[in-house]
């Protein structure tokens, strides 16, 4: 009885409670969803791959008998008593880093897909554990223990690598701040006896990578049937090197491998009470970001000693340690006529009080006095919302919501009339110090849905978004949104959805002096707050004429116009289309495919001019840039029937091609020279997965997977011909480039059920 009630509570709570204070449902920690998203090593990543046409899956893990492992009905079905052990062998032609951007595909012994569950015979407890990619950089471990009706304890450990490059090289001899260069070469370049080319032979190759290691533990306790108490702790260690730019002035920039080692600790505590008709939740969230290396000192590649025109070394602030504390409360109440009111409040306190670095470390310059010793950066954040859902009549449903969000900047004003630019020279601050940006948002929305034309549901909705800003060019913006949608539901074999949105945003309280102060064109409008009209349509149809066939079509188009933005973004457009088909039958055959097309465009206008009024105000110096991106994505999969009694296979193929073009135009007959158009950029990724499994004994199966993955790319900003031939050595760069690769990867393993 307690378990049934708990399950019901869990369903209700999961609808309304973002804080995971769940009565007795198995803790839905992120780790579990991550685990569940990879059911088989060769599972296609296609977003439109259909339902796996296998016989009905085995019963959920909670019902699995604890004593003996079940023989799966299919070799690709996961059980809770299994592991895979074998070897991985890969051949990579080209860039191995890009192939392993977020994964570790090195050769070696592979122990993965470990699943174990134990449930007490009387059903009073359940333990589960998983392990994947053991010993590799992307290893992942999960464990849960549930005492039915009492508590759930769960945890995970996950490594997420990010492999940037094997092409990187740097003459900097240290890997932590200060980043040092050999003094003799610095001096030689300073004295004109050498050029930046001198650094090239002094730059050994290194692998540029970073990773996140995330550890998480949580518990949910249910002291009474009405009360849940929850706690979570997550610690994320982020370490490695990042490609990072620094500069000592125009025309000279230095790319370094930024050393990074930070830790973020998050603590969540909450309690939730419910009687099924009302719910009240209170919670505390604390987050601490600790970055002991929040200052970067780096040698100049062009000189050794400080001077009044250039330094021998630079100093930059990195991300400061900070904290965020949030107290929140939420709840719902149910009323007659299937009406529910839900609300939430939260109060956040954000803080960064790191010591301020000096204005410069250039000893040849006069040091400017700091406005204060520490940042004293504070923000108070308030959020509140109320949602009402009601079905007073069988054919009518109404929803309304009101949301308020305030970001209040509590940082004390700091007078900074001057600053040191590039550690090189003292410059006047156009604003006299930091502008204390703050903003607030009030959002109202209401929808009415009529289902009298069953199976069709028609919805009309209105929304109003009001925003106010401190120190933005508009003091406030207001937007009206009209939404119309039609859904077909409950009809045999057909589901349909079409949605149209019309929105109109207008700014008020224009203060173009802020633009003028910063040297911007006064007719420029920042597109995130500029006047805007939006038209957007999306639609989707799914048709299942028989149990075997499923067809789907979807598409969308839309345009954002910025009618009063003489400079800046003028408009953006999108077009999307997708089609898919899936077939499955009783023989075990499953096949499907999908095609996706996306096209995005953006038109922006600017004026290429110096600050003198003759140029600054000359409209014949205007230019536009029209950016277009298209993406074609194609995916197919085949799951053939069993080959004999003991062999099964899966094959999938994914193809993605993305292309970007940029068209510059200038005023005909104007003073600007005709632009030399940028080359097209593109990337093409193909993935062929083949996964074959053969049962040797009832408990043992041979699993062979093959991945063929060619990647082709051209991006002028990262192409080796540009970075190695043009950029370097005029600038000191790491050599981080975009390179193609072709990877062939095999995994041969034994899958054992125990």
């Amino acid at each position, binding site marked *: 009885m307690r378990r049934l009630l708990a399950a019901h509570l869990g369903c209700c709570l999961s*609808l309304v*409670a*973002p804080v995971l204070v769940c009565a007795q449902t198995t803790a*839905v920690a*992120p780790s579990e*969803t991550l685990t*569940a*998203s990879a*059911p088989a090593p060769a599972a296609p*990543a296609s977003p*439109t791959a259909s*339902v*796996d046409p*296998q016989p009905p*899956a085995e019963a959920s*893990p909670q019902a699995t008998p604890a004593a003996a492992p079940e023989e799966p009905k299919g070799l690709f079905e996961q059980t809770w008593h299994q592991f895979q052990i074998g070897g991985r062998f890969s051949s990579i032609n080209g860039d191995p880093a890009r192939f392993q951007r977020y*994964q570790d595909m090195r050769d070696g012994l592979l122990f993965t897909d470990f699943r174990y569950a134990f449930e007490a015979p009387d059903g009073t407890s359940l333990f589960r554990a998983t392990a994947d990619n053991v010993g590799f950089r*992307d290893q992942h471990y999960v464990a849960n223990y549930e005492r039915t009706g009492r508590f759930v304890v769960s945890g995970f450990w996950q490594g997420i690598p990010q492999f940037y490059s094997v092409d990187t090289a740097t003459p900097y001899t240290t890997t932590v701040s200060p980043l040092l260069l050999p003094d003799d070469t610095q001096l030689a370049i300073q004295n004109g006896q050498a050029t930046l080319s001198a650094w090239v032979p002094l730059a050994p190759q290194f692998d540029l990578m970073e990773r996140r290691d995330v550890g998480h533990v949580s518990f949910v306790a249910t002291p009474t049937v009405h009360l849940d108490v929850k706690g979570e702790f997550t610690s994320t260690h982020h370490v490695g090197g990042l490609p990072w*730019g620094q*500069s000592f002035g125009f025309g000279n*920039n230095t790319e370094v491998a930024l050393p990074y080692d930070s830790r973020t600790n998050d603590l969540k505590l909450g309690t939730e009470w419910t009687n099924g008709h009302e719910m009240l939740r209170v919670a505390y969230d604390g987050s601490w970001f600790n970055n002991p290396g929040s200052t970067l000192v780096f040698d100049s590649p062009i000189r050794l000693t400080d001077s009044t025109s250039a330094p021998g070394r630079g100093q*930059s602030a990195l*991300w400061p340690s*900070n904290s965020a504390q949030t107290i929140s409360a*939420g709840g719902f109440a149910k009323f007659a006529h299937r009406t529910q009111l839900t609300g939430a409040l*939260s109060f956040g306190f954000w803080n*960064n009080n*790191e010591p*301020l*670095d000096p204005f410069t470390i250039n000893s040849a310059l006069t040091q*400017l006095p700091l406005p204060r010793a520490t940042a004293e950066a504070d*923000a108070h*954040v308030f959020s509140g919302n109320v*949602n009402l859902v009601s079905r007073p009549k069988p054919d009518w449903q109404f929803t309304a919501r009101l949301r308020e969000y305030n970001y209040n900047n509590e940082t004390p004003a700091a007078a900074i009339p001057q*600053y040191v630019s590039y550690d090189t020279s003292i410059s006047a*601050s156009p604003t006299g110090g930091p502008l204390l*940006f703050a*903003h607030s948002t009030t959002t109202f929305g209401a929808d009415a849905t009529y289902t009298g034309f069953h199976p069709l549901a028609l919805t009309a909705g209105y929304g109003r978004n009001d925003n106010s800003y401190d120190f*933005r060019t508009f003091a406030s913006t207001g937007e009206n949104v009209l939404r119309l949608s039609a859904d077909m539901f409950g009809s045999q074999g057909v589901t349909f959805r079409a949605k149209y949105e019309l929105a109109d945003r207008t700014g008020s309280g224009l203060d173009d002096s802020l633009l003028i102060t910063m040297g*911007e064109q006064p007719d*420029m409008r920042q597109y995130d707050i500029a006047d805007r009209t939006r038209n957007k349509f999306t639609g989707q149809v799914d048709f299942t004429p028989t149990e075997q066939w499923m067809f789907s079509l979807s598409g969308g188009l839309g345009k954002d116009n910025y009618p009063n933005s003489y400079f*800046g973004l003028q408009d953006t457009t999108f077009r999307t289309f997708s089609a898919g088909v899936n077939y499955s039958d009783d023989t075990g055959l499953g096949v499907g495919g999908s095609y*996706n097309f996306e096209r995005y465009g953006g038109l*922006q206008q*600017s*004026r290429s*001019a110096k600050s003198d009024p003759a140029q600054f105000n000359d409209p014949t110096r205007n230019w536009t*840039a029209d950016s277009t991106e298209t*993406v074609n994505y194609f995916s197919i999969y085949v799951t053939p029937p069993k080959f004999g009694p003991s062999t099964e296979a899966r094959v999938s193929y994914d193809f*993605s091609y993305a292309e970007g073009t940029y068209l510059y135009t200038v005023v005909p007959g104007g003073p600007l020279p005709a632009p030399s*158009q*940028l080359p097209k*950029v593109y990337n093409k990724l193909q993935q062929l997965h083949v996964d074959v499994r053969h049962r040797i004994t009832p408990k043992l199966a041979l699993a062979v997977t093959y991945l063929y993955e060619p*990647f082709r790319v051209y*991006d*002028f900003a*990262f192409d080796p011909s540009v*970075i190695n031939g*043009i950029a370097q050595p005029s*600038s000191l760069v790491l050599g981080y480039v975009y390179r193609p690769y072709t990877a062939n990867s095999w995994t041969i393993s034994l899958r054992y059920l125990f």
Partner: protein
Amino acid sequence: MHSPKSVEHQLVKPTQTQVCATCHRLEVTKTERAVAHMPVREGAMSCTSCHNPHGSISNVKLLKTGSSVVEQCTSCHAEMRGPMLWEHEPVRENCTTCHDPHGSSNDRMLVVRMPMLCQRCHVASSHPSSIYDNNAITVNKSNRMFGRSCVNCHSNIHGSNHPSGQFFMR
């Protein structure tokens, strides 16, 4: 519920991503982007890493953490949370002004590549409003056209805690 296709959570399809793709095909396709994406297709993240599909009463877009897009993103990218001495307005207000959280063909998941992205809001005289065409690469060898473009110099683009960080170069 009686014949779930997934190992856990009784989903109607084998993976969570496939369930979401039934209706949100565009967003899921973006996670497959070759150049810039979250580690969804590698299995390190999923839709529910950021979204609560059953609802969220405290945040927009069914985001599961915090009360705004910024709070959701900085729950993992806490280094951007600040607050900073020198703030960059779009960073403080909404990460999606510059980034597409589901994936992009542009480095760092930007909605459009640099310098075009920056030039949508910055039209000041001299270099912010210059045309960076192919000559900027091949003839002028401009450091604003290769690698991280504008961020080669304006590296603290998410905000700076340095007294000399007004233009995010320190």
